[in-house]
C-alpha cells in the first residue's frame, strides 16, 4: 500500500465515524419509539431490535388499546395542532414582513442604514428566556397568555431579523438594472417587484421561510412560559412536560419526539441547497 491509499482509508474511516456520531442519537430515539418497553428496559441491553410495533403511536393518536384506560395521557394531537397552527401562521407573516423589509434594505440607501440593519439583527440576540419575562408580564395584563395569537406575534418578531438578513442578500444579488429596465418597460415599482425581483429571489424567500418554520417549530424558551395549557402548548413543551415526570415512558416519549424530528428531516432536504449560500451572504460579500 502506498501513502495515498493509506490516506484514503483514513479519510473514509473518519467519515464513517463522523456519520455514526451524527446519526446515532436521532436514529436511536426513532428506533426506541417502535420497540416494546420491556426490550428498552432490559438488562443486559437488547442490541438487535425485535418485535417492532406501532403501539406507542396508536396509544398517542387514538387513545389506549389492549386494556389501558381510554385516552392517552399525552394530548399529542393538541400539541401537534398548536405547533402546526403557530409555526405556519408565524412563518407566513414573518416572511411577508421580512421580505418587504429585506427589499427595503437591499434597494434603498438611507442615513444610518447599516446601523438600523445591525439594530434589527441585535433584537435576535436577546436570549429567549430574558425576553420572555417582560412579555409574560405584558401578556398577562392584556390577556394574550396561553393564546395562539400571542405566541404567533412573538415568533413573528423572532423570525423577522433573519428573514431580512437572507432576503436582503438575495435581492442585492439581482442587478438593480433588472427592475429599472422593467420600470422603463412600463411597470410600476410594485409590478417590477412582482414580475421580476420576486420570481428571481424565490429560492431565497423559500429558504427564509423554511428557517422561520424550523425556528418556530423548535422554539421552547418563550413558548414554554407563554403557553399554559393544551390550548397553546406546542410539541416541544409537551415533550418537556412529560419527560420531566418521575417515571418516564421512554418509548412513548420517543414516539412524541418523532413528531418533532419529521419536519426537521424533510425541511433539511428541502433547504440544504440554499442553506450555505443563504448563510454566507452578506457575510463575505458585504
Amino acid at each position, binding site marked *: 500500500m502506498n501513502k495515498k491509499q493509506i490516506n484514503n482509508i483514513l479519510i473514509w474511516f473518519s467519515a464513517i465515524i463522523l456519520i455514526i456520531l451524527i446519526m446515532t442519537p436521532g436514529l436511536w430515539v426513532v428506533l426506541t419509539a417502535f420497540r416494546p418497553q420491556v426490550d428498552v428496559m432490559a438488562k443486559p441491553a437488547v442490541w438487535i431490535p425485535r418485535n417492532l410495533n406501532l403501539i406507542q403511536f396508536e396509544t398517542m393518536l387514538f387513545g389506549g388499546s389492549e386494556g389501558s384506560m381510554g385516552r392517552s395521557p399525552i394530548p399529542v394531537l393538541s400539541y401537534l395542532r398548536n405547533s402546526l397552527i403557530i409555526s405556519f401562521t408565524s412563518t407566513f407573516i414573518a416572511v411577508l414582513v421580512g421580505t418587504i423589509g429585506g427589499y427595503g434594505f437591499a434597494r434603498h440607501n438611507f442615513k444610518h442604514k447599516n446601523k438600523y440593519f445591525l439594530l434589527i439583527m441585535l433584537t435576535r440576540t436577546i436570549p429567549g428566556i430574558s425576553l420572555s419575562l417582560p412579555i409574560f408580564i405584558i401578556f398577562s395584563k392584556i390577556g394574550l397568555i396561553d393564546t395562539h395569537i400571542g405566541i404567533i406575534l412573538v415568533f413573528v418578531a423572532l423570525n423577522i431579523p433573519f428573514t431580512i438578513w437572507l432576503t436582503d442578500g438575495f435581492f442585492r444579488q439581482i442587478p438593480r438594472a433588472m427592475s429599472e429596465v422593467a420600470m422603463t*418597460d412600463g411597470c410600476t415599482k410594485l409590478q417590477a417587484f412582482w*414580475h421580476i425581483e420576486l420570481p*428571481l429571489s424565490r429560492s431565497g424567500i423559500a429558504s427564509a421561510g423554511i428557517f422561520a418554520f424550523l425556528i418556530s417549530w423548535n422554539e421552547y424558551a418563550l413558548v414554554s412560559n407563554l403557553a399554559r395549557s393544551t390550548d397553546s402548548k406546542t410539541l416541544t413543551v409537551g415533550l418537556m412536560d412529560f419527560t420531566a415526570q418521575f417515571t418516564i415512558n421512554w418509548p412513548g416519549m420517543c414516539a412524541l419526539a418523532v413528531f418533532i424530528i419529521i419536519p426537521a428531516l424533510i425541511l433539511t432536504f428541502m433547504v440544504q441547497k440554499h442553506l450555505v449560500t443563504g448563510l454566507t451572504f452578506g457575510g463575505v460579500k458585504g
Partner: protein
Amino acid sequence: MAKVSLQGVSKFYGKVQAVKKIDLEIINKEFLVLVGPSGCGKSSSLRMIAGLEEIDEGIIKIGDKEMNNLEPRERNVSMVFQNYALYPHMTVEENLGFSLKIAGLAKNEIEERVHEAAGILDITEFLQRKPSQLSGGQRQRVAMGRAIVRRPDVFLFDEPLSNLDAKLRNQMRTEIKRLHQKVSTTIVYVTHDQVEAMTLADRIVIMKDGIIEQIGTPLDLFERPATKFVATFIGSPSMNMIKASIVKQNNELSMKTNDGIIVPVPKDKQNSVIEGQNISFGFRAEDIVPLKFGQKPSSAWEMQSSVNLAEPLGTETLIFTNFGEIEIVSRMFTPEQVKSNDVLDFALNLDRTYLFDENSGLAI
C-alpha cells in the same frame, strides 16, 4: 418620435453636484452620444431622462411634455443597460414581450411585434431560449430587441458595449448604427469610449465634472475643439499638448515652452494672444511628421529629435519622441522602418496647431 430637452437640469448626491444646470436640446430622430470620463454626470443625465433618478433642479421634456413628475413607465422611453439586464427567468420571447404584456396588449399582437423585432435583430431562432444560453452578442441583441418592441419615443443606451470584447464591440457598434437607420427613433447613448462616440453619433455632447464642455458633430469636435479637455479627449492617440507662455521675438509673438523651446504663434492667431499669457498649444500626431518620410506643410516649424520608440501598426507608424522634456507622438502613414535612437527632423504644421488659454481652458 420626439425631441428631448433638458433645461437647467441638476443632480445632487448628498452634497456633491453630479450634474450642474445643463441645457441640452436633442433633435427628433437624432443619434446623440453623451461622452466623458467616469463621474462626469453622463449616466446621471441619462437616468434622469429615463426617470430612474429624481430631477433635483430644472426641467426635462420629451416632445412638449414635461417629464419631471412622471414615473419611468409613463415616459415611453426604452433603456438598454450595460449588463443587458435580461430577465433570467424568462425566455427570449417572454423577455421581448414583457413590456407589451404589462401594457395589456392582446396575445397575437404581442407575438406579431415580438417577431417583427426579432426579425430586425436576427434573433428569431433564439426565441425559445433562456438568456443564460446566449452568447454576449446575442444577449446584447435581445436587450435591444426588448427596447424596440415598445416603439418608444426615445431609446436610451447606458454603455451597452462596454462588457463585450473588442471584436464583438466593433460588430455591435455597426449594428446599433444600422438599427438607428431602420427604426429612426431619437437615441441618447452614453459611453466613455470616444471612438464609439465618434463612429455612432450625429452629435456628441462632451461632459466633464457635471457640465457640458462642447456639443457638436464628431467632425466639429475633432477639428474645432472648444476646450483643452475636448482636444485631448477626442482623437486617438490623444492630442499632444505642451504648456507655454507668450513672448515677443523679432516683432512677432511666439510660444516659449518651459524647456525654453520657442515656437512661433500661428499667423491667424497672432492677434488673439497677448504677451505674457499662459497657454497650452496642441497638435495631433499626424500634424508633426518626420521630414524624411512626409510632406513639408506650407507653414511649418522644424525641430530635430531622437526616436524613443516606434510602433509600426501596418498602415501607420507611431513614433514617440521628445519635445524638450515632454514626450510627444508623431504619426506617419508611410511604411518606413524607424528604429529607436534614430535622429529625425520633424516638421510641425502650424496651421493645424491649437492654442488654449491655460486659465480658462478655452480655445483661442
